[in-house]
Every structure is written in structure tokens, then in C-alpha cells.
């Protein structure tokens, strides 16, 4: 039986996103964006959503009909890396997102207003669009000691999240911190940090983990909603299958070298220069579900493995503990088939690392870890 969550039309979806003013297609036209560029954008989005190219006209048609939805973006225990990722978005660009596609009514990093004027902007937005706005959360939420480790405007992030996410149509947890607690939640989790779905139970949350999240996956999620009127199908970890449905290892450009037993042994060696498999250098691709190898970053320029460094497993819950140390080889990686999903194999594969994590929890300065047994390859 599949334990995937059912594709969800969220509870509040009968209201849908509001119709307000011109459609995105009309707005783009008015702003001098050519129909050709608009269709180019739709094609890119279609690819990002893992849809066949033949869907591009449907995407264009859907976007033609949808108006600029309201979005509020909340920064909690974060490093602003996901906001920076948004600034690097190319299809559409952040300029287009702000001016043409969405109405980003609250985002502390970019908004002009500050202090109580910023507060008012948030309050007005969530009151005027109750149940109809999208909320993006960046960063984990501290639960310890009443949430005092994260405050904005004298209120805890926990209180803000419960109120603002609670009244949203849906919440997108961007990045691993908002999805699962991320780095702040790593042992010993000094502030009791958790992801949004743990801090605000019972709401519709779409997790877009990654450190940072690939901006293409954010725009694709929003467009997916605009096009299909429902949130994408997700795995048991709340991640859309279109972006997290396949293992890095199975889409990796270096997979043939893994299968052929050709590995990098030392940084800068001949195998490293030739682009052999980084498994022995600690690559966590075999345990990580993410579309990095195909979607890549910065307008498809590159991704970690292509720069000669292993995958860190950053889209997996608690990867900071279960996937570290960074350069330790994953134990027990057989060559299982590409039909596997995160729900079927993900847990089993990191079990060895998870055992190390349990030990880590009781760590003292004098303790020495035993390395888990490594699979001998090649």
C-alpha cells in the first residue's frame, strides 16, 4: 500500500485563490513581456514540474486565467538562504515574480516598510485575504521556553506562525529548516527547533527541502497550484513527487562510474579530474531524493556533484545528523533499482548513519565514534 499522501485539494480550496484585477498573462503583456517569452516561461515551468512538454499550452492557458495571488513570506530561524535562492530564480525572475506573478505583501528582506508599518502590512493582508493567501515559511520555529529564541515585533515566531499559517490557503515550507527543523534542530537542538508542520499541526503544508531550496522548485509548486488548482502529490515526508520523487543516485550523471566501479579516491586525483563517482568521498546521493541532477542550480549551471563534491543529502529530514560526517561513506549501498521511492528505501539506507546519530546524542568531548562498517566497492 502506498503511504503517499493523496493529492490534496486543500480544505479551503473552494474559495481558491482570489480573482483580482488582470490575469498574469494580461499583466505580462501590459508590462511589455512578449507572448513568446511568456510561453518560454510556461515551457520551463512545465519541465520543472516534470510534465511532458505537451502540457506547456495548458500551463499557459491556466496562467492566463489566474490572477496575481497574495503571498506572505515569513522568516523565522533562518539564514535567508532560501530568499537568496528566490533572488536567483530565472523562470520567472524575481522581478517578474514580484511585479507580475504574485503579490508578495510581506517579506522582511525585500519590503520597503519597516517596524509597525511592516506589522500593519501583514495584519491588513491576512485580514483582507483570510483563507485565500499563500504563506511561505523560511526557517525553523523554536518551541523551547515558550519560543523566546525567535521573536519579531515582540511576538514569538510560534505565535506568528500559528496565526498566519493557520489562516492561509496553504503553507509552503521552503528549505530544510522550515520543512523539518534543519540545522537548528541538529543534536542537541538547543532551541527546540521544529519545522512548520510540527509547530502548526493540522494545516496544509508543502515541504520544499534543500539547503537552500532550489528556487525552480518553489516557482514550479506555485505554478502547479495555479495550473491544476490543487497541491501536488507528495511523499510521506510532505515533498512534491515532481521534484523529490527520484533519488539523486539514480539520475546522477556519474552513475555509470558507480556501476563500473570507478571512484574518486583523493581530491584532485586523476579520477576526480575525469569526473568519476564520488561515493567513496562521502556522497550521500544514494540516500537522497531531490531533482538536483536534472534541475541543477543557477539557471542549470551546475550542482554539487558536478563541482567535484559529493551530495550532502540536504533535502532529507534530519540530514544534519543522519548524513554526517560529510566525508564518511554511506554504509551498505547496493545497486538497487531506480523504481525505489523515498518511502520504500530511504529509511533503510540511512539506518547505519541513524545509529551513529543516536550515539551522537549522548556525545561527550572525550568519546570516540566507531565508524560504521563501510561497503567495499570497486
Amino acid at each position: 500500500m502506498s503511504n503517499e499522501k493523496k493529492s490534496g485539494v486543500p480544505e479551503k480550496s473552494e474559495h481558491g485563490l482570489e480573482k483580482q484585477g488582470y490575469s498574469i498573462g494580461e499583466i505580462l503583456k501590459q508590462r511589455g513581456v512578449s507572448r513568446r517569452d511568456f510561453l518560454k516561461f510556461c515551457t520551463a515551468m512545465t519541465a520543472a514540474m516534470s510534465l511532458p512538454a505537451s502540457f506547456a499550452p495548458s500551463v499557459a492557458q491556466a496562467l492566463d486565467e489566474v490572477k496575481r495571488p497574495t503571498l506572505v513570506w515569513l522568516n523565522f530561524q533562518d539564514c535567508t538562504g532560501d530568499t537568496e535562492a528566490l533572488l536567483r530564480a530565472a523562470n520567472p525572475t524575481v522581478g517578474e515574480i514580484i511585479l507580475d506573478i504574485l503579490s508578495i505583501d510581506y517579506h522582511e528582506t525585500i519590503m520597503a516598510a519597516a517596524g509597525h508599518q511592516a506589522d500593519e502590512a501583514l495584519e491588513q493582508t491576512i485580514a483582507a485575504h483570510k483563507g485565500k493567501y499563500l504563506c511561505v515559511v523560511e526557517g525553523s520555529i523554536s518551541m523551547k521556553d515558550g519560543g523566546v529564541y525567535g521573536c519579531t515585533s515582540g511576538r514569538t515566531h510560534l505565535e506568528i506562525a500559528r496565526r498566519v499559517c493557520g489562516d492561509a490557503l496553504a503553507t509552503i515550507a521552503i528549505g530544510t529548516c522550515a520543512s523539518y527543523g534543519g540545522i537548528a534542530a541538529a543534536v542537541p537542538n538547543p532551541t527546540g527547533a521544529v519545522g512548520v508542520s510540527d509547530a502548526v499541526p493540522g494545516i496544509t503544508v508543502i515541504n520544499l527541502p534543500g539547503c537552500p531550496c532550489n528556487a525552480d522548485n518553489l516557482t514550479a509548486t506555485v505554478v502547479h497550484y495555479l495550473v491544476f488548482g490543487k497541491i501536488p502529490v507528495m511523499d510521506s515526508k510532505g515533498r512534491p513527487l515532481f521534484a523529490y520523487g527520484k533519488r539523486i543516485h539514480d539520475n546522477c550523471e556519474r552513475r555509470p562510474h558507480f556501476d563500473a566501479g570507478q571512484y574518486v579516491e583523493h581530491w584532485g586525483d586523476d579520477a576526480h579530474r575525469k569526473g568519476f563517482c564520488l561515493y567513496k568521498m562521502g556522497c550521500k546521493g544514494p540516500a537522497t531524493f531531490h531533482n538536483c541532477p536534472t534541475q541543477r542550480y543557477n539557471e542549470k549551471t551546475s550542482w554539487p556533484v558536478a563541482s567535484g563534491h559529493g551530495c550532502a543529502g540536504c533535502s532529507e529530514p534530519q540530514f544534519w545528523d543522519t548524513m554526517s560526517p560529510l566525508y564518511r561513506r554511506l554504509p551498505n549501498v547496493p545497486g538497487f533499482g531506480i523504481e525505489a521511492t523515498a518511502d520504500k528505501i530511504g529509511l533503510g539506507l540511512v539506518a547505519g548513519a541513524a545509529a551513529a546519530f543516536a550515539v551522537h546524542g549522548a556525545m561527550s568531548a572525550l568519546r570516540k565514534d566507531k565508524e560504521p562498517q563501510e561497503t567495499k566497492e570497486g
Partner: protein
Amino acid sequence: MARIVVDPITRIEGHLRIEAEIEGGFIKDAWSSATMFRGIEKILRGRDPRDAWFWTQRFCGVCTTVHSIASIRAVEDALKIKIPPNAQLIRNIIMGIQNVQDHVIHFYHLHALDWVDITSGLKADPTKTAALAASLSDWPNNSATYFKGVQDKVAAFVASGRLGPFANAYWGHPAYKLPPEANLMATAHYLEALEWQKDVIKIHAILGSKNPHPQSFLVGGMSIPIDPDSQNALNADKLYEIKRLLKKSQEFVEKVYIPDLLAVASFYKEWAGIGGGLGNYLSYGEFPDANGNLWFPSGALLNKDLSNVIPVDQGKIAEYVDHSWFENSAGAGKGLHPFEGETEVNYTGPKPPYKNLDTDAKYSFVKSPRYEEKAMEVGPLARILVAYASGHKETKAAVDMVLGKLGVGAPALFSTLGRTAARGIDALLIAQQTPKWLDELIGNISKGDYRIHNNENWDPSTWPVEAKGYGFHEAPRGALGHWIRIKDQKILNYQAVVPSTWNASPRDAKGQRGAYEAALVGTPVFDQNKPLEILRTIHSFDPCLACAVHVMDVNGNELVKVKVS
């Protein structure tokens, strides 16, 4: 006397709150508070020192390379690892473009709206705007048609009635002084800079897989292999693309950023007399050559005295927690050197929701670093002043050019405007210098040197039982230091004293204000319900609060008991 609160301070990284007392239209006193804490240094204990860069990189996604650099330098210092020249040059290029891109984003997207009234640009004459722009530089987009297009775009946006991130701001505030044409020009460049920044930072993707959070750093070098005969390594194709992007970076700084900076500054010259603050400056210097000599010199300046550059000694840095939500067993009024740190978070502030902090007691998650017990300002201004006072040729020429064009003397630099101008000068110098490091790298590769990593001490079994080291990096926002203690191949203690810790620090035991606090004193506030002026001075520092807040947490005492074998 009125006490006002600005929280959130927006258009920064992180969670910063300013409380200020205003009397007679001027700020009489101010308090800077960081309201978010994660405790990453505590989380680092017991982990592999070679992983530390990957963790500390997440201090901040804006300064996305800087903690990686400081971290690998600290570990390399502890383990006495010397990196190959190519790795140094690649790091220099990564740091260089980080600096330039970061400064441009700061100027246009975080700071400009303090000086530029976007709505006023709607009244501008596009032809006159084009004439104004053409008088400043020969940037190809300086046409009336172009500015008309931008104006129409903004007008349509405003007409939609949904201003998004531009809603509820201080538009129309009397402190905005630019004529409509300058406002339109700056608005156009705000949008252009958004496009530009995502392009030029692809250099990080080429050399480090992605940005933010590039992933090719290694203790001992870099992971991006070099091989002109491989498609999986840094080859001619990729080097040429970097060259193209560096040229694009330099052109934008020379033809758009600097001209805009000078144009905007010329309308706000009174701000050359506001926001000076501490007058003490600290810079660690940066961009080592193959022999470790720094291109930007390090140094400290006290009391705005440019005639005496004091050599920096990391041993003279200590952190105080008398007004920070931490405990310190060394006792009240005692500072601890980062190697000796032993601090526990202990929130004693008001129970949320709260209206005001008790600023007589502890009031921030940021600690108070001091240099020989003195509060210091760090950042581009400190870096440029130290270089200028040290007689650094390129810096002197650039500073004199900017001062000359604005018709002001060097004392104008000790101000809010000076801070903003120094950031531009810094970007200009580094944008012009970075291509030279690329040329050097290409030269090395031509000679057959493909080394990117020193493997000698990669294996932890080669390490001493105990080691300690520090890594300095002159980051875009200023002097950054990481200190590490390693024991039994694990991190025993990790401590970062970052630029925004210096600048955002609360008072110390002696009551000495931090840099933000000191700079705000005396700032005029026209309308205390719309404290635009506070944003100007605070933004001139380019705050980065996720970086600033951290905790060191170590068994410092325990270490003393352990014998080194």
C-alpha cells in the same frame, strides 16, 4: 522624551530590533537587539572539523561563502595545512564576486529605498532622466525609451492597487530629496540590478556548484578539479565564462553602481555629518597571494585617527555578555577570548508578547566583542579607511576620486554616507582586481599546475591529539574570525566573532555602546512615527543578524585539565 521601537528592521538579513529615545527631533540614545538564536556553535561540538565549513556556511545565506572561508582557514591553521596556489586563487575569485554582488544587492535592494522614492519617479520626464543618466555614464540602457518603459511598468503596477513589498512604506516623506528623474533612474537600476546579480553570481555555480551555499570548499583546498582536457573539470570553456561574467560585473559597478552612488550622495551631503558613531575601526585584511601577503592590509584605527594604523592581534579580542542573554562563569564585566569561551544561553528578557525590552538589563542575543576593551566598527568603511591610512595605492586613488567628485574631505567618510560610499569603493576595487586573479589562475594552468588540494593532512589519523587555530576573513560586511579547538579528531570548541556581532553588539560592562547604537545617537528624526532616518543609518552597516547571533559552548575548563600528548 519618546521611546520608539523599530521591529522588524526590514531589508536586512535576520531579526533586528532597534529601540531609541528621541528628544527634540534627535535620537538621544539607542539600543540594538537581536531577537533570534539558533546555537549552531553548540551543535558543532563533537563533529568532524572538516565538516565545520558546511555547517557554519548556514550561519548565513546572504554572506553565503564567508563562513566557509573563515572555517577552512581556521582548521587549516590548526592543522598547519598549506593550500596550493590554485585553490587560493579560486577562493579569491569566489570571495571577490561574493563581495561585489553582495554590495550591489545591498545598495539597490536593501538600502536604496531609504533614499529613493519610487513613487516620485512616476512624475519624471523620461527624456530628462535619459539626459541625467547619460551625463553620468555611457551605460547602454540610458535612453528615454528605456526609462519610459520602466516608468510605464511601475505605473501599471501602482495602478493595480496592489503594491506588494512596496506597500505601506515612507513614500512622500520630506527626508526624500531626489528629483523625480533621479528617482526614476534609480528605480530602473533597482530592476536591472536584480537581473544582473543572478547572472554574475553564476561564477559561484561554476566554481562551487550553486549559489547560495556553494559546495566546493575543502579543508586543504577546493573540490573543483582543474583539467583543460576534461569535461568534468575547470576547463577553458568554464574559465572563459568566468571571465565574461567578471567583465559584466566590473562594467555594472563602473557604469551604474558608482555613478548612481555619486548622484544619490550629492543630494544627501548632510548625511556626511550624521551617523559617525564609534570612530574606531578594525579590518583583518584580505586576498592573500601565493605567499600569504594580503592585498587589502589589516589594521585598526582609533578615534578617527588616520595617521596611526595599529597592527591587529587576535589575542586582544574578547567577548562580553553583560547585556546579552548568555551566562558567563568568568563573572560580570569579564570578557573571554574566543579560545577560552564558555557561555550558555539564558533568556532573561520579557515574556512575549512584549512592547519594550529592559535595556538596563540584558537585551540581545548578540554578544559584545571588544578589541582591547574598545568597541570597534567593522565593514567596508573600516576596510577602506585602514587601506587608505596604510597608503594602499588603489584604495587611495578610488577614495580620492569619490571625495573629489562629491567635493568633500576625508572626514566626510566618518558618517552614514561615508559607510555607504565606502561600500561602493570597495566593490569597485574588488571588481577591478578579481579578473587579475583569474588571469593568474589561467597562467598557472597553462604551466601545467592543476593542483587544487593538499591531501597530506586530510586523513584525521595524521592529526595531533589536540590542535587549535583561527581563521580570519575580511568578508563583505567586515572583520570575521572563526576559532576552533580540535581534540581526538573532533570539534571541542567552535567560536565565531562575525562582522555584525561587532556592529550590532549591545553595550558592554563599561556601558560602551556597540557600533549601531553609537551611530544612531544624534541622528535627526523628522517624524517619529516614520523613522526613515533610523533605517538609513542602520542599513548603512548592512546588518546581517543570523551571522551575528551565535553561542560558543565549550568545556574550556576541561581542556585545561587534559594533557597534550
